[in-house]
């Protein structure tokens, strides 16, 4: 347990939980999290903005993700330096460091993993691109075709196409009703003005958390962050994120996607609690027991019997209630209706004895997976992202305790609540021969 904290003139110390400390920059409320991993020679830094697909307007879906691509383009400072590429790309192309970014429903994050001597350079890049990227057509137009290429890559996957249709059917008002990458038709109609509006609205220090994990001392981190970020002005309006309450669902919702090919999928979606609530983890355990591999209930009754080729599930760690989906890829001429009936019957027939046995092993596996997933500075900084987006990063340390406390009764209750008419959306991906 690490109990020390640094007193720094530019920061308010907020808290230390286990080996991670939180500070807030006095001038603009930029949050800084720090974790020390000595003797590796490597640092990962990751800046998380609370700006994601949920913050987009109708007709501008995917703009948060498009902007993420543009944040790798030159800033006004890069132009002044006469750089051809942006500072970020230039840095990667000169050092071979890992750099990337990703956008999700509630947040966008940008990360670098690099040799420790490059720390100052990386922070300078993050500070400069927080507000001064040049969003101009010359950079934007070729990048948009890359995003369209990325969209087509995802859209070529049957599960993705089905999930787009299913979340759109499940949510009528809440912005989780569209996938992060947005609709192709919206991407084709973006303008630099739309991007600029989103950038100005959400990219400010008081809407960001900077995580630094690795082989560097705490004082050096705080000194450098203060030096580079303290003069960036906060945005007083950014913290007012609107709350949307999804209207009540009154019956099972259904949707179909029909395409050429051979794949047929039945997908069962259920609305579950947000991350990292107890209900989110109960649902995770439920999904793992139902469709998480060879020893799962559906693995045994559908894959082993040859009725299905594969079973899997998708559950996003989003702040609000969201749709988790179980995918069943049908084998041969298996009829979707028959499998749907069988699946719901299997769920209905789950007894306490089976649950008791499975829950114990599923919890053990989930806890160890958490540890395996904290293997490198990049893994740790990546995993922290979702906890930051949920509003309380310190729950990162409570996962084990939370999982250990989930009982058979909790799961029984959760199953009864999830697979009901007011929570379910059923999707069918149907193929026809061309």
């Amino acid at each position, binding site marked *: 347990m690490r109990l020390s904290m640094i007193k720094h003139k530019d920061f308010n110390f907020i808290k230390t939980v286990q080996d991670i400390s939180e500070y807030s920059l006095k001038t603009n409320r930029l949050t800084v999290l720090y974790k020390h991993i000595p003797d*590796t020679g490597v640092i990962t830094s990751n800046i998380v903005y609370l700006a994601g697909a949920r913050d987009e307007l109708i007709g501008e879906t995917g703009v948060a993700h498009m902007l993420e691509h543009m944040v790798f383009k030159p800033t006004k400072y890069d132009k002044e330096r006469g750089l051809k590429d942006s500072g970020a790309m230039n840095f990667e192309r000169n050092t071979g460091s*890992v*750099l990337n970014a990703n956008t999700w429903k509630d947040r966008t994050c940008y990360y670098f993993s690099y040799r420790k001597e490059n720390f100052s350079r990386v922070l300078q890049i993050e500070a400069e691109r927080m507000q001064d990227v040049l969003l101009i057509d010359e950079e934007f137009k070729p990048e948009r075709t890359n995003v369209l*290429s990325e969209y087509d890559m995802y859209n070529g996957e049957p599960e993705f196409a089905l999930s787009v249709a299913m979340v759109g059917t499940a949510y009528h008002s809440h912005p989780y009703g569209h996938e992060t990458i947005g609709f192709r038709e919206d991407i084709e109609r973006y303008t630099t003005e739309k991007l600029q509006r989103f950038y100005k609205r959400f990219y400010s220090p008081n809407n960001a958390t900077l995580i630094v994990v690795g082989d560097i001392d705490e004082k050096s981190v705080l000194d450098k962050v203060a030096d580079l970020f303290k003069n960036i002005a906060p945005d007083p309006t950014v913290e007012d994120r609107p709350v949307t309450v999804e209207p009540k669902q009154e019956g099972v919702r259904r949707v179909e996607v029909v395409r050429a090919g051979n794949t047929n999928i039945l997908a069962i979606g259920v609305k579950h609690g947000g991350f990292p609530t107890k209900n989110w983890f109960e649902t995770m355990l439920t999904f793992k027991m139902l469709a998480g591999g060879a020893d799962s209930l559906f693995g045994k009754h559908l894959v082993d019997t040859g009725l299905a080729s594969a079973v899997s599930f998708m559950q996003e760690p989003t702040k609000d209630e969201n749709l988790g989906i179980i995918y069943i890829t049908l084998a041969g001429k298996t009829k979707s209706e028959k499998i749907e009936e069988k699946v719901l019957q299997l769920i209905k027939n789950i007894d306490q004895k089976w649950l008791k046995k499975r829950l114990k092993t599923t919890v*053990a596996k989930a806890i*160890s997976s958490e540890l395996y997933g904290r*293997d490198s500075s990049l893994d740790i900084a990546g995993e922290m992202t979702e906890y930051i987006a949920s509003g309380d990063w310190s729950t990162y340390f409570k996962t084990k305790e939370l999982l250990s406390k989930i009982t058979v009764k909790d799961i029984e209750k959760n199953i009864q609540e999830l697979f009901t008419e007011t929570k379910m959306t059923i999707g069918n991906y149907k193929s026809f021969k061309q």
Partner: protein
Amino acid sequence: MEIKTTDYDNFKCSVVAKDTPVVSVIITADLHASNSPQNTLVGELLTDLLLAGAGKYSRDDFLQAVAALGSSINVSFSQGRLTISLKSLAENLSKTLKLLEVAITNPTFSTSEYKRATKTVKNSLELYKEEARTLAEDALKRSFYGETDRHYRYEPVDLIKALNKIKLTDIKSLHKSFLTTFWFVSIGGNKKSVKTTLSLFKRLKKKPVVPKTNMAIAVLAEKSKKSKVLVELVSSKQNVEFSIGGHLPFVLGDKDFMAFTFGLTVLGKWGGFAGRLMSTVREKEGLTYTIYARTEGVSKTETGYWRILTFFAPKDAVTGVKSTLREIKKIYQEGITEEEWGRFKEILKTGEALSYDSLAGTVSLVHSALVSGIDYEEYKKYQKMLYEVSREDINKTLKQYLLPENVVISAAGPIDKKLEKELKMVIK
């Protein structure tokens, strides 16, 4: 972190010693005899049946016993090599190793599990028919290697046809080979975990191994040196997947291999944005989301090939391929610049440094070197050679081996007749 490779009587082991609560173990045995649909399928079925019941455990009991420890044991079979990967918390390692031991030494191989496994393998092969990226890659390999070579991957339809020819005795026989073959082992974890794991392998590999008679030597397809375009229709996809490449005549450790690898990294560094292809085809021209290049299939005894992996929208496919070929020709003719030579040395060094930040990444790196025929010390020597290779040598090998006139273009996706014709025209 300490890394060391040691030769034992019947296995070779790389150890990554690090103070960590998790343990990562990888075992590989080279079981390649000759490549055939049957042998491919026997390997696939063995991966399933090794975890489908052993000793007193039924399949369900076994999988639950592993899960109850929070551990995982996975088996895969690729190019004639069987690989077992184990992950465990250090505190549960002894119990996990006991389960591994029983799975390896005393699998049940019941008829009912064999029938189940056959059914699931058939269903997964049906899914493979729509995996455009894999289909494009496999077709590329088929153009370089003869059917008996381990790199040659049969089409799903050939594998499905051969499935009913497989008998349970074939699987038992391959399992026997696994037990009696030399193993390559990598262990990552704290010192106590390493010691515990090593003692299991010393016990398991007490008996002398059967020497391998068939040295792995690449068997090339007769027409591997001809430029061509291979096309497969996968109508459900939105993009056309491409594997573009050519055969390479050298093995790991050849000076030419190091120089060529350096040059190919400049063309299309795998991951990130630094390669020329990412700078031009993606960044400047906006034609694709990713485009990377690397050498594959090269080991200490086998030659391999270079491959560019990318995809384009059908409307951009011809332009995309032309841009890719333009960049190949440019680097072939002009070589890399002095500036690129200096910069990519740094890039390669950073890549190596970053790979040691994760235990699983380090174990995977040392294990893949081991399976390619080099121990960790030798790997370090090769890395040094890579950093020291001269620009002249790099450009010489690019001129010698990155031959635009021999490039094979393999495409899979929504390709209509018009696009197929246009793609074939590109190389004319």
